[in-house]
């Protein structure tokens, strides 16, 4: 049989539970703009009923705390997509810088465009054919050669500088990764100690926030371990965090660029394809820039050596037969010849326009030099077509990176939206919850007042004025 005091204690539990629920609402509202916060909902538990003579009497309610609303699978999907997306975005930024070295020529007046330079250079030999001993025409050959060499060399220099700056950024990212993995290892320990069997709430928020940050930096896989622990390995399988222990990524210089090591293994190429910012940076540094540089080197090497050979196979104005000298500095090897390309000839008289042993008015060697423009001298292509292919390769990589980036961004936005829908704080919902808990609290208070009156009546045994 129920008593008045049992009813009072029941009301008491309701008031406490409502207050605790209002606390949860207040906490949600307080964190409404906190992107790493996961919305909590009050968890109500009915108290064990009391059985008296086979009749169950309710014992009220307890609020056992807020439960974080998260979906681990969804969170992981978002993190994985973030890894791909930040890799694509870092790559795109790098490629955009590369493509600025290859401007679109709008007409013959465009400066800094290697394609125009190549054409002007070979055209200057055609013009020399009309008057092989003309000094102005010879000067023009040297000046267009200098423009060509200068532009090729400056593009190569800027690509090399970009390699250096990407290198530096990648190292910075690696050190950020290290501090995040250290922090993750600590959070893992705390979670394992405090909340081995259930969602760790705020601590889990912190862990997820670290994982989200880590996703932007590097590609990784996560494995749940016992007691709510977590292990993290790079996409290639190199362990970074094993529950409470973290493995630091170390750096070392190999062939002039920074390489990354984890546990003594060189993981550089695995990182490049793994995702995250570091993936994009390393892809640009180790694949796109070297590819463009190699093509430029081939172009510079091909033009320099072929033109030098032709110039040394004719007769110049000074009477040198077959030893008129080099126009461009002679590259020893293909690698590095773009950056080193420079005009070494200073005297325009040394341009060997005439065929070997022929007089100053002969132009057969100038014809030979001019016809290099239409000969397949570089990788089976004419110089101009070779450059055109280079432009198309660089352009293609920018264009596909742009598309990939847009697509990945869209999917990240979508996943983010799904995560926010589940875990974000909706103020309207909180307002209505608060209203509900407030009403419930008011109702319990009302019940208390009435019970109080009843209790007074019981104490006074019908004499209503003694106790009120």
């Amino acid at each position, binding site marked *: 049989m129920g008593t008045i005091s049992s009813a009072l204690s029941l009301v008491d539990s309701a008031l406490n539970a409502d207050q605790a629920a209002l606390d949860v609402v207040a906490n949600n509202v307080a964190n409404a703009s906190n992107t790493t916060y996961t919305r909590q909902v009050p968890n109500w538990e009915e108290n064990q009923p009391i059985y008296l003579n086979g009749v169950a009497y309710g014992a009220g309610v307890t609020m056992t705390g807020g439960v974080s609303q998260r979906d681990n699978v969804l969170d992981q999907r978002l993190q994985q997509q973030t890894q791909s997306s930040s890799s694509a975005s870092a790559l795109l930024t790098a490629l955009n810088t590369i493509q600025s070295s290859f401007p679109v020529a709008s007409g013959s007046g465009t400066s800094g465009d290697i394609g125009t330079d190549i*054409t002007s250079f070979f*055209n200057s030999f*055609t013009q020399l*054919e009309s008057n092989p001993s003309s000094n102005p025409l010879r000067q023009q050959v040297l000046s267009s050669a200098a423009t060509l060499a200068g532009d090729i060399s400056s593009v190569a220099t800027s690509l090399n500088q970009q390699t250096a700056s990407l290198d530096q950024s990648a190292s910075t990212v690696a050190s950020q990764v290290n501090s995040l993995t250290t922090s993750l290892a600590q959070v893992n320990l705390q979670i394992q100690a405090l909340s081995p069997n259930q969602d760790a709430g705020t601590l889990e928020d912190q862990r997820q926030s670290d994982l989200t940050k880590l996703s932007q930096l590097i590609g990784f896989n996560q494995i749940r371990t016992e007691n709510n622990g977590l292990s993290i390995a790079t996409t290639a399988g190199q362990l970074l965090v094993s529950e409470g222990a973290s493995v630091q990524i170390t750096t070392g210089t190999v062939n002039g660029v920074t390489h990354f090591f984890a546990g003594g293994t060189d993981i550089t190429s695995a990182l490049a394809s793994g995702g995250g910012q570091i993936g994009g940076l390393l892809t640009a540094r180790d694949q796109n820039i070297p590819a463009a540089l190699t093509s430029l080197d081939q172009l510079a090497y091909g033009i320099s050596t072929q033109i030098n050979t032709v110039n040394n196979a004719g007769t110049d104005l000074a009477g040198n037969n077959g030893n008129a000298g080099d126009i461009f500095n002679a590259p020893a090897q293909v690698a590095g010849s773009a950056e080193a390309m420079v005009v070494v000839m200073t005297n325009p008289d040394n341009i060997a326009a005439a065929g070997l042993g*022929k*007089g100053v008015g002969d132009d*057969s060697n100038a014809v030979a030099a001019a016809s290099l423009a239409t000969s397949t001298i570089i990788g089976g292509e004419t110089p101009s077509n070779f450059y055109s292919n280079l432009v198309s390769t660089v352009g*293609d990589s920018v264009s596909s990176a742009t598309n990939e980036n847009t697509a990945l961004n869209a999917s990240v936005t979508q996943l983010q939206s799904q995560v926010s829908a589940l875990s*974000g704080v909706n103020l309207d919902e909180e307002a209505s919850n608060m209203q509900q808990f407030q009403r419930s609290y008011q109702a319990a208070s009302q019940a208390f007042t009435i019970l109080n009156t009843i209790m007074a009546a019981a104490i006074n045994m019908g004499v209503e004025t003694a106790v009120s």
Partner: protein
Amino acid sequence: MRVDPFYIVNLSGALDQTQSTQQQLTNEISSGLGVNTIGQNPVAAAQNVQLLNEIQTEDSFTQTSSLSQGMLQVADSALGSVVTQLNQAISLATQGTNGTLNSSDLKSISNQIAGIRDEVISLANTSYQGQYLFSGSQTGSIPFSLNSGTSPATVTYNGDSNVSVLQTPSGQSIQLNLPGNQVFSSPSGDVLGALNNLVADFASGNGNGAPTDLANLNTALNFLDQQRVTLDNSISRLTDASSAATAESTQLLNVQTNLMQADIPAVSTQLSLTESQQTALINVIAALGSGSLFDKL
């Protein structure tokens, strides 16, 4: 289903998107180019490199060929004058060989032919912009010099037999010069030798040997005319090649313009659409951001 409480924040991402589209479209309008970076349209950018290469090569050839045409025309008109002079020499020599003239008349004919010879030598030494036209590749040295010490006088050729060519963008080679030893002192038609012999024949006062030398001069004149045809051919081929290059360059320029130019009406329309979209988006954000259930509590 629950909704994303942050969707208004996400709308600002869409706002960024419209802004960047606006920027790109404005760029296209201001530069007039539909392709501003190679990543925007790699295929067009690569084609553009090749087209510009061809256009610039054609343009440059047109300039070069006008220089060469000038030179060829000077050479041709020099040869034209030589022909006139030789015809005069032939008529003088014909007079000299008809057997009616006395020795002093013959000497006067000799002097006149000597004058013609000097004129022909000076025409053979014609230069254009400081370059001797008939000395093969030795354009820096005077091709012909006369030695009057002997009888008959002799002419020395200081040039060589090299022929220069100009290559057209389509790859054909056009001959740019005639070596002097081929035009004026070739074994098949030795103009200067025949003139010198005639001078010596008539200078002796009897005109012996003049008929043979006159016949030789006639042969030489015919041979020179043939040589001149080569030059005329070069001029007309060069003119053709040059106008072909100009026409092709114009055509390629059209192709290049079509490839690279921004479609201004289309871009403007897109721009105004994007602007409306942006305004709409801003209004939506402003309207949605202002309400919450908490206002009603």
